[in-house]
């Protein structure tokens, strides 16, 4: 499977490693040059330094042959734009995203090009509430 990850933060990097270990072909796009310079070399992972919300960069990173797009930047608007642009492709890859701000949860749905999304804040909050009960 071809996996395209947008955002090489903690989440993006960990997913890249995990998917590569499973034998998938992984591409990562990161716009911060400093983060790109510090990105460790991982087998089967190719890093593209550039803006993942730029259609040209997405194409360079192989969006047209991608099966799953993983939008895990720290900005929800960027993740939503990535999802929109991905769905404009003819192959319509599956789009999975992180929700940084739980108040933005209402936007992360099929209407917005997102097939599945989770908010870490909401997950942890649910766990805390469950504990208290």
């Amino acid at each position, binding site marked *: 499977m071809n996996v395209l990850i947008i955002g090489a933060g903690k989440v993006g990097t960990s997913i890249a490693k995990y998917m590569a270990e499973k034998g998938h072909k992984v591409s990562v796009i990161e716009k911060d040059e400093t983060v790109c310079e510090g990105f460790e070399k991982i087998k089967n992972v190719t890093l593209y330094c550039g803006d993942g*919300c*730029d*259609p*040209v960069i997405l194409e360079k990173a192989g969006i047209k042959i991608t099966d799953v797009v993983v939008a895990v930047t720290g*900005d*929800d*608007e*960027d993740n*939503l*734009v990535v999802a*929109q*642009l991905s769905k*404009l492709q003819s192959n319509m890859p599956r789009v999975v995203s992180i929700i940084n*701000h739980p*108040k*933005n949860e*209402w*936007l992360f749905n099929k*209407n*917005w090009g997102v097939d599945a999304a989770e908010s870490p804040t909401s997950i942890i909050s649910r766990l805390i509430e469950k504990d208290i009960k």
Partner: protein
Amino acid sequence: MQIIIMGCGRVGSELANLLSMEGHKVSIIDINPKAFIRLGKSFKGTSVTGSGFDKEVLEKAGIEHADAFTSVTQGDNRNIVGALIAKREYGVPIVIARIYDPLRAHVYNKLGITTISPTTWGANKIKELICHSDVLSQASFGNGEVEILEAEVSSNLAGFTCDKINVPGEIMVVSITKLGRAFIPVVGTIMDQGDLLHIAVASSSIPQLKRILGI
């Protein structure tokens, strides 16, 4: 009209004041309450502190009954998502997003949002002032791709029809003012010396038009 502006920066505050002065009902949203200082005391509209993606904030600003929405924050992506929310989730009839990156503006147009790129518009305007200060632009459309220029009929064009000037898809005489009365030319209309022409021209064809007019 009821208008919502997302982002109270230089453009947002200026726009809010202009619209409010014309009697429109304006709500302006910004995440930073200090940004509203820019509005000044004369602003009659409402200011709402919060994120333009937040349902509560948008509804407080009156998005459910808004006639127009525009996003003019510093972030292109924030502007496009804000605009899409207004259009998709609330069906606001007029939605405009400011996009700095001209390369992306056309992709976002594909998503059904009207975009304005001050980068393209500004560059076109400055180019025109540098290279074509001898022809006067009367109006500019889109991001400056099409202009209406004013020119007087010189002796070398007098006695000819507009076909002498028109180039399909590039240049077209849209109005002739003869002795103070303007009309739209038809096939065979003859131009006389001193007639005032209004010519629609693609900005890339301005040099060609200048050659035709003999300027």
